[in-house]
């Protein structure tokens, strides 16, 4: 419920900002009957309506991931942003190698409690950060099960 209300509010505020932005568009001396403002204004008005409907008639909340997954996703976002910045100065090969290495650090596989995690003690700190200490390929046969997370 509340998620949709927040989202609806964000939509309404965003749409109002969009309308404000549309009103500040300057028309040139040479313009057609509609001008550059009208269509954005129509879109903004429609978006305000949609936001209000979401505010007043919210759906059920979605299932949000747990904190660990959030951390992983945040790390992945940072990694992607870093990759974007690195691609032109470092070149394709170096930055892709770095990002692929980093990708392995952003661990998508949850560790099972009491699983056959051979690097359990070493990895405890990393685990809390949801970071995989070494590349996934290094994982031994016993760890491969842990990689999928639930056997």
């Amino acid at each position, binding site marked *: 419920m509340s998620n949709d209300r927040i989202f609806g509010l964000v939509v309404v505020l965003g749409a109002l900002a969009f309308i404000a932005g549309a009103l500040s568009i300057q028309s040139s001396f040479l313009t057609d*009957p*509609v001008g550059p403002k009208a269509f954005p204004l129509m879109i903004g008005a429609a978006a305000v309506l949609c936001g209000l409907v979401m505010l007043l008639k919210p759906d059920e909340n979605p299932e949000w991931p747990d904190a660990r997954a959030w951390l992983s996703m945040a790390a992945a976002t940072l990694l992607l942003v870093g990759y974007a910045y690195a691609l032109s100065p470092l070149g394709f090969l170096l930055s892709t190698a770095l990002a692929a290495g980093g990708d392995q650090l952003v661990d998508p596989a949850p560790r099972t409690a009491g699983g056959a995690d051979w690097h359990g003690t070493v990895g405890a700190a990393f685990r809390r950060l949801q970071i995989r200490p070494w590349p996934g390929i290094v994982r031994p046969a016993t760890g491969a099960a842990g990689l999928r997370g639930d056997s």
Partner: protein
Amino acid sequence: MEILSNLAMGFGVALTPFTLFLAVVGCFLGTIIGALPGLGPSNGVAILIPLAFSLGLDATQALVLLTSVYYGTMYGGRISSILLNIPGDEPAMMTTLDGYPMAKQGRAGDALVISGVASFVGAFIATIGLVIIGPLLARIAYKFGPAEYFALYLLAFMTLGGVASKNQAKAAFAACLGLGIAMIGMDNSTGMPRFTGGNLHLMDGVDFLVAIVGLFAIAEVFFFIESHGKNSAIGVKLGKVTIPWADLKATTGTMLRGTGIGFVAGVLPGAGASLGSFMAYMAEKSFIGSKGNFGKGDPRGVAAPEAGNNAAAGGAMIPMLTLGVPGSGTTAVMLALLMTLNITPGPLLFAEQPEIVWGLIASLFIANIVLLVMNVPLVKLFVKVLMVPPWVLMPLVTMVSFVGIYSLTGSYFDLLLMVGFGVLGYFLRKLDVPTVPVILGILLGIQMEDNLRRAMVISDGDWPFLFSSPISIGLWIAAIPGFVAPIFLRSVLKTPVGGRPVHGPGEERRQCRPACWCHRAFWALGFDRNALARGVALRPTSSPSTADRRTAGRFRWGRGSRNIPAPRPARNGAT
């Protein structure tokens, strides 16, 4: 016999050794992309568009490659549906209903062959339909002026919202978001910057390829991380594959019926392949009645949805090519491809660049035959590919998207924008806001505005001009119920006469919600609501073992869908 000579010309364009090679590569890649859960047709084509450009292909070659990928994904989706009970892409959802039971009975090979042939029949006949109907519709579309086009775009947004989401407000918001993003940049007719915030990178507007790859591919990476990567298909076995002639003969009628229904669903704006396969399955089920063994491994239950979704894929090309209005997510991506190639789809395309249209159509025929060969005798190869662990796959997807976009635009800003769209896409899909209308808005926004302004220039600012021709009045009249009807249907479905048509909390988690599009569509077609509940509840509901949980996790990531509401994890079912 104009059609035949046109077709001959098309084959002349498409039958060079290099384009044939591209068709084979495209079909192969497409089948893999379709088979891998999580990578569906729109993602697959979206990722490969920038790549096709960086390879320096010309228009026809790029089209051949990407249409082969498109058809390939439609074929490939069934493989994981049948073997793993996970739809490889969204339209293959209905194939799990009978495909997986068949595999459990040791008839996986039969199911794969039947569905492969059904895919071929569906896609082939739909392509013939495209050949016949396309030019006819293009002739009608000649009469379209700016006012009609404006109404047509509006119709596309309205009806797309009707099927794309269970909440009309969210679907409409998605369209507004896309249109709003399209407004960013320099205004075409006055040269004034709009919504750029003084940022020079935004003066040219937001490239729709950046948005598409971000919303589809990068968002998928986030969904993968969320699902904790429980997605590998290691340990799937497939015995000897033989051709079950008797079953093929018995399902011929089914395939033809499925093709017809799917084709119509594909041509309608906004419906697309998922609805095609759904309606084909349901119609076949009610046609056969109690004689059938549906849900327990009836070959007809595999043939109908596969014929349906492949026919819809072909049908969806018709509005895209003749009117420039895509009927589904993947055709929206194809439209983006055409626009990047500087080809404007529409009636003029048939007259001015016939070699492209007919070359495309010829390549669809070629792709179909290549796919039939690939998917029937060589299906084992693709089963092996399914075993690629996703933690190899996802970095690969990321890399291909980044390198593709970078090679196309050469700007780190676009990469950042793409990541931003990825995050946006993740949250939108989480909140049940469909992303296909966003894409469509970004693609069509400028044209929609241009047509509105052109209409106003013609009429000298007289707004009623928008409703002045019979065609535009018809389109407006069609748009309003297209948008409003689902709202009422939903409220009717909320309090059905015979109790809730769906599934209690303890049941299989992979079920749709009462107000989802399939229920609405189903109800609208006048079928028995409860038949749907039976059909969907026929999925295996064995005790949730580890494998089941893994399947469920895999599916969560693998739904690859913006149309189907997120499957809700069963709170008391799988504990």
